[in-house]
């Protein structure tokens, strides 16, 4: 296995662990909003009442109770009717991506993805040595004509990978029509779609849009979800929702990968859903994140030069910045770290490279005044570099 590369994010995160650095690089939830006190109570009760199940091996598919709760939640959130048998619990959605690669990708197969696309997916798929083909993408999602021409001209397209809701890194949300178009094209060409939806619930303006999976009548859309953004990333819990024919293969592969996901953490999440109000918890998160997004946008509006453009995401954790052509975000980062502010250069999110003038900013992980201060620092860096260019 020679293609495995050290991830860029990994290197950046090391630097940003110093407390004096204002980091817009990570994708972390706000740690003060984590329900640690509730978890302490739940852990005590789960171990007392259901300890054997929590500590023993469990089924590869996941705990029945959690699968059922997730199936019900899909129904109530998105009117998505899926049976418990169509839900697989995984060890975080990173595992769902890895399993997808393991199930579908032989060397040389093609993955169609957005441009830019999620870095963790690139690194998960890359282990299986596929070819990535970026499909031109605008503010509303992949351009259907572009997708169609690639589906009809390319030979070995195995997967279409998309993040339709408040995408990492761009913050973009697909329009309703584009979602329907994608489901139709996938069905017409018989190509499975991985719909990665970690941010779907983090919607700050207006109402959320239904997932691509809700337009899927051919059973080709594989929907990935996670507790990482709405409950806790440390529990490492996610889910895969797919047609049972596909899901059986995921189960088979997962068995060889880690047997099953931790029973204790599964029960903790299930009991959190049963005994606490997960939706109210998410509403609280959204209120805080909305304020932080607004603070970042206000600071960008106030400080950033006019030739720098940025997205105004209606949800999620990130926004996307485009510097004037010719500027290099990687070099900018070196200077930014001297000013103790960090971000992720956008280049890493394009499998084919390029786009050196883009970068990603996270707004969820710190209080509003730190955000404002960080953007001020960034602006100082921009001014000094701009002068140099």
């Amino acid at each position, binding site marked *: 296995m020679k293609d495995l590369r050290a*991830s860029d994010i990994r290197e950046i995160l090391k630097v940003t662990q110093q407390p004096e650095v204002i980091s817009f690089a990570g994708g972390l939830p706000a740690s003060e909003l984590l329900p640690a006190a509730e978890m302490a109570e739940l852990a005590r009760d789960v171990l007392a009442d259901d300890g054997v199940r929590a500590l023993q091996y*469990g089924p590869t598919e996941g705990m029945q109770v959690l699968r059922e709760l997730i199936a019900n939640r899909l129904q109530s959130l998105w009117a998505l009717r899926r049976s418990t048998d169509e839900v697989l619990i995984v060890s975080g959605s990173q595992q769902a991506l890895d399993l997808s690669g393991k199930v579908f990708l032989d060397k040389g197969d093609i993955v169609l993805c957005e441009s830019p696309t999620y870095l963790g997916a690139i690194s*998960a798929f890359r282990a299986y040595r596929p070819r990535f083909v970026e499909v031109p993408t605008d503010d509303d999602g992949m351009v259907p004509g572009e997708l169609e021409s690639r589906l009809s001209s390319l030979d070995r397209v195995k997967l279409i990978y998309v993040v339709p809701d408040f995408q990492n890194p761009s913050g973009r949300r697909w329009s309703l029509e584009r979602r329907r178009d994608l489901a139709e094209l996938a069905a017409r060409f018989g190509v499975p779609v991985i719909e990665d939806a970690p941010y779907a619930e983090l919607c700050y303006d207006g109402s959320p849009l239904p997932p691509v999976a809700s337009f899927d009548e051919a059973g*080709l859309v594989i929907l990935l979800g996670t507790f990482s953004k709405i409950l806790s990333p440390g*529990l490492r819990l996610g889910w895969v929702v797919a047609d049972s024919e596909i899901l059986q293969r995921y189960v088979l*592969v997962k*068995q*060889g990968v*880690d047997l099953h996901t*931790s029973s204790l953490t599964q029960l903790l999440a299930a009991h959190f859903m049963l005994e606490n109000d997960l939706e109210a918890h998410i509403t609280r998160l959204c209120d805080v994140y909305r304020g932080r997004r607004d603070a970042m946008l206000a600071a960008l509006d106030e400080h950033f030069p006019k030739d720098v453009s940025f997205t105004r995401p209606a949800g999620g954790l990130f926004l996307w910045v485009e510097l004037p052509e010719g500027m290099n975000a990687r070099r900018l980062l070196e200077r930014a770290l001297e000013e103790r502010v960090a971000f992720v250069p956008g280049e890493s999110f394009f499998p084919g490279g390029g786009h050196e003038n883009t970068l990603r900013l996270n707004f969820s992980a710190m209080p509003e005044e730190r955000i404002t201060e960080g953007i001020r620092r960034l602006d100082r860096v921009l001014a000094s570099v701009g002068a140099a260019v």
Partner: protein
Amino acid sequence: MEISIDRDSSEPIFRQVVREIRSLISSGSLPEGFRLPPERRLADSLGVNRSTIFNAYRELKGLGLVDAHVGRGTAVLRAPAPIPNAIGVPWRQLFRQSVARSHDPIIADLLALTEREDVISFSIGLPAPELLPLDTLGEYTAELIREVGAPLLLHCPTEGHSPLRETLAQWVAARGIRARGSDVLVVSGSQQGLDLVARIFIDPGDVVVVEEPTYIGALQSFRVAGAKIIGIPVDEDGMRTDILASILERERPKLIYTLPTYQNPSGAVMSLERRRHLLELASRWHVPILEDDPYSELRYEGEPLPSLKALDENDLVLYQSTFSKALFPGLRIGYLVVPPVVLRQLALAKQGADLHANSFSQYLLERFVRDGHFATHIEKTKIAYRRRRDRMAAALQRDETIGLEFAVPAGGFYIWCRLPDGVEQSALLANAAARGVVFLPGRACYPTEPPENCVRLNFSHASEENIDVGIERFLEAVREARVWGRMKGPDGIATSPVV
């Protein structure tokens, strides 16, 4: 236009209407340009509020399926492209080659059977539920969470929670392994260790050497990686290293996988002499050894032998162990002790695979081991497991006319039992399951056709009473399968020799 709605359904009526009309459009029953009935008329005919139909039409419009104009009503925009039937999707061609031809998910099936209360299971290597320290663990954990707070719910490094890595380095020192915390990689159960090792060493077509029989989960990982798997027979002194020698020369494998201590499934312990011979061979041919050591803590008699890792002077041994056998499998935490250059590659692979093992379990185990509870727990379980092993061995000997052959293992979880000639395993498994007892068919533990007709019986999970009852059921099933097999003649017996 015919629509039916179900008032008792939990699905809101407007959604039912949307769904019905949508499927009429996509099936072509409602062609492009078709005018939907006015809202009031449809509402009256279905006996629902007009607002319900209003909402349904609005959603259909949002979906781009219909368009509404004042005065012209609501018309179907276009029929979406014909959608092929899901059954028509050629899934087998879409799946990866090694996945499309993978074997049955036998472990998942057995785990599912184990969940049934009326079944006594000797199939899976489960710790005894009664021995779990549940009376104190709840409050212990709650206190830990209150003390640690948010970090326990946040990400931790891919390599593992640093204090746990330090604690594990000290723990393995008791097995003669010299390691620092930075040599330890925490994984999501030792199955993941196998998978990660396969990822970084094995390209499709590469050769992996395993013991024969061996751990079924290892075969699964290596198969999915596309390895060519070669089995080396195991006798009472472990892997036949004399046979290994010629295989190494001929096949140049990428990896040797071994369970030297209380091997799963045979229970064998590799002798000191063989351990040295194996290390010597590996070093001569530069082949890394993955030493899987889940059971060495569970020693019921005899003196412990040093692990391969403790004897290794050439940094060729990748050592792996787990908390799943001696403690809590449900937490899914295992660990590897490996040279730094290997650790780096494994960590990169792990990052792509699942970022890191769950923080919660890592904090809990670290504290549990450091407080000395793990050591206490092992002492307690060893006493119980030794009794269960003896109870099972005695029960198996109750009917000597059957002709079962087995050795009593000095440690671990399993009795490996050779069946008499004429017993067909699939018939026996079905027969036994019908009587309420399950076991692992031995053939699952072989990379190719098994030379012998064996079954693996786990003795750690069932209580002593259930061991008696379960073995009685098992013996009945063997007796019956044997008669049946004799009537059928020798065709059903697998005898093809494998070297």
